[in-house]
C-alpha cells in the first residue's frame, strides 16, 4: 500500500506563518461546514470514518466526542495533547512546524461538536520554540473570525513524560503534579476541573477537517477493517533516511523501514517507543495497524551490531525515571526491572530472575494505574520471547 497525504497534505505547501496560504488550500472550510451541521451530524461523520486516536491508545474519536457531548453540564473542555514524549516520536513537532492551522481548525471543530467554549493545547516544554508559531496561528484564526465563541489557550508543560498520559495531562493543566488519575470516571464525564472533556492527539485532530470536508465514507475506504485512514510515522535509529512518513494503515513495516527509510542489516524494531513492542527482523512483513503494532507511530530501528540487553536496559531506565510514582506496581516494578537487567547486562544474572521478570511484567500490566506502567514491561516481555538467548548469556557463570 502506498504513501498517502492526508495529515501532512499541507506540510511544505503552505506557509505556517500565514493563514492566507492555508485558506487557499480549503483552510477553515471544514469548520464552516461543521457549524452548518448539527453536532450529532459531525459525530456521525467521525464515527463513520472509523478515526481512532493517534496518540497510541486508538480509542474511537467519534465515540469520545459523543460521550463528552452527551455528558450533562454546560461547561466542557476540549484539549489537544501536544506532549509527545514517547522516545523516538517527533511527528507532532513536524506537523506543528509545518501546518499549525489544520490543528487549530480541528480543535475548533471539536469544540463546536462537543459544546466547549474553551480549548487547550498542551505543548511539551521541549517544544517551547514552537510556541510563537502556534500562537500566531491561533491569533490569525481569531482575527479572521474563525474562533468566535471559542477560545484556545496554550499550556506549556515543564518536562514530564507522564503528562502525555491524558489524566496526568489534565492534572498538569490544573497546575498540579502530573500524576495519573484513577478511572472511572473517564474524562468525557469528569475531566479537566471535573467537567466533561475530550483529549485528542495532534495527529487525530489533523484528520478532522479532511473528514468533515470529504465525508466519513471517503476516509473509511482507506486502511484495514479496524484501522482506517493513514498514520504518520517517526522513523529513527539505524536507518539511512530518518524522518516523518505518512502511510495508509495496513502498509507493511518493511515498506516503511527498508523502502522509505533505507534500513539495512536490521536486528529488531521497536514500534511505539519505550512503551512499545519489539519485534525481530523476521516479522518485518507485519502490517502497521491497530490490529498488530502501532502505538503513536515511533519506529526505532536497531541493526545487527546492537546489544539487546543494552537497548532494553536503557528503555527501562527511561521509564523508571519518568514513572510518576503514584502507584506501587509501576514505581517499584520499574526499579526492580532496571536492577535485574543491569545484572544480566554485566553477566551477573540469576537464572530464576527470568521467571520473576515474567511474573512481575504480568503484575505490572494488570495492576498499574495508567498506560505507562501497564505497557512498561513490553520491551522485556518481547525480548524474552524473541531474544531469550541474550538473557541466558547474561546468567552468572555462563
Amino acid at each position: 500500500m502506498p504513501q498517502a497525504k492526508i495529515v501532512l497534505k499541507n506540510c511544505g505547501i503552505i506557509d505556517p506563518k500565514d493563514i492566507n496560504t492555508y485558506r487557499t488550500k480549503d483552510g477553515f472550510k471544514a469548520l464552516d461546514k461543521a457549524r452548518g451541521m448539527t453536532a450529532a451530524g459531525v459525530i456521525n461523520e467521525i464515527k463513520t470514518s472509523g478515526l481512532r486516536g493517534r496518540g497510541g491508545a486508538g480509542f474511537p474519536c467519534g465515540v469520545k466526542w459523543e460521550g463528552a457531548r452527551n455528558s450533562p453540564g454546560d461547561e466542557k473542555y476540549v484539549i489537544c495533547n501536544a506532549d509527545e514524549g514517547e522516545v523516538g516520536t517527533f511527528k507532532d513537532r513536524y506537523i506543528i512546524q509545518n501546518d499549525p492551522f489544520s490543528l487549530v481548525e480541528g480543535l475548533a471543530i471539536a469544540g463546536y461538536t462537543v459544546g466547549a467554549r474553551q480549548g487547550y493545547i498542551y505543548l511539551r516544554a521541549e517544544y517551547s520554540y514552537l510556541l510563537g508559531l502556534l500562537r500566531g496561528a491561533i491569533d490569525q484564526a481569531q482575527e479572521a473570525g474563525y474562533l468566535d465563541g471559542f477560545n484556545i489557550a496554550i499550556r506549556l508543560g515543564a518536562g514530564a513524560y507522564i503528562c502525555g498520559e491524558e489524566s496526568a495531562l489534565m492534572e498538569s493543566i490544573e497546575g498540579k503534579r502530573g500524576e495519573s488519575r484513577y478511572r472511572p470516571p473517564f474524562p468525557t464525564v469528569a475531566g479537566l476541573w471535573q467537567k466533561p472533556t475530550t483529549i485528542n492527539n495532534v495527529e487525530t485532530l489533523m484528520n478532522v477537517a479532511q473528514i468533515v470536508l470529504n465525508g466519513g465514507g471517503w476516509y473509511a475506504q482507506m486502511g484495514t477493517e479496524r484501522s482506517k485512514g493513514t498514520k504518520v510515522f517517526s522513523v529513527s535509529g539505524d536507518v539511512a533516511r530518518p524522518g516523518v512518513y505518512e502511510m495508509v494503515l495496513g502498509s507493511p513495516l518493511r515498506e516503511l523501514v527498508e523502502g522509505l527509510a533505507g534500513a539495512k542489516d536490521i536486528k529488531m524494531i521497536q514500534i511505539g517507543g519505550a512503551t512499545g513492542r519489539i519485534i525481530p527482523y523476521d516479522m518485518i512483513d507485519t502490517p502497521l495497524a491497530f490490529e498488530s503494532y502501532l502505538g503513536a507511530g515511533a519506529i526505532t530501528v536497531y541493526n545487527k551490531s546492537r546489544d539487546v540487553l543494552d537497548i532494553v536496559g536503557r528503555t527501562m531506565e527511561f521509564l523508571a525515571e519518568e514513572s510518576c510514582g503514584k502507584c506501587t506496581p509501576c514505581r517499584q516494578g520499574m526499579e526492580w526491572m532496571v536492577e535485574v537487567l543491569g545484572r544480566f547486562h554485566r553477566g551477573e544474572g540469576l537464572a530464576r530472575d527470568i521467571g520473576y521478570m515474567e511474573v512481575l511484567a504480568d503484575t505490572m500490566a494488570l495492576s498499574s494505574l495508567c498506560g505507562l506502567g501497564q505497557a512498561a514491561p513490553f520491551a522485556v516481555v518481547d525480548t524474552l520471547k524473541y531474544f531469550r538467548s541474550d538473557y541466558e548469556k547474561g546468567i552468572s557463570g555462563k
Partner: protein
Amino acid sequence: MSKKDATKKTFDNILLTLEETQEKVGYLPAEFMVELADSLDVPVSDVYGVASFYSFLATRPPGRNVIRICKSLPCHLKDGQTIIDTIEKEIGVKPGRTTPDGRFSFELTNCIGLCDGAPAMLINHNVHVDLTPGKIASILDKYK
C-alpha cells in the same frame, strides 16, 4: 466541584505561577515558594511537590545558558555519548553541574523529539541537531 469560571481558575494555578516566576527570575527561590504556599493557604510541600516534579523547573539558580542534551535511544544510537563527553571536556563540568562562572548548566535529558536530527540538544530554547564533536566548540561559543 469548583464553581469558579474558566478565567478565575488560572488564578491559583501553582504550575502556571511557578513557570511564570522561573521565566522572570530564572529559578524558583525557596522564599518565593513559601510565600506562594502562604498566599494559597496550602502546605509548602504542595508547592515544592509541583516544583520538584517537573524536570524543567529549577529550585536552584541555573547557569545563564542551559544545555539539555538527549540521552535517549535514538540519540544514543547515533553516538550521543561522544557528544556528551565532548561537551563535558569543553566546559569542564559533568552533567548535572553548572560551570563555576555561571555560563552553562549541563543536563542530560530524555527524548526531546529531534530524533531525525540525532544526536541533538537544546540550549535554552534553541535546537541543535546532527551534532558532531567538531561542531560543539563553535556552537557553545555563541552562548556567552
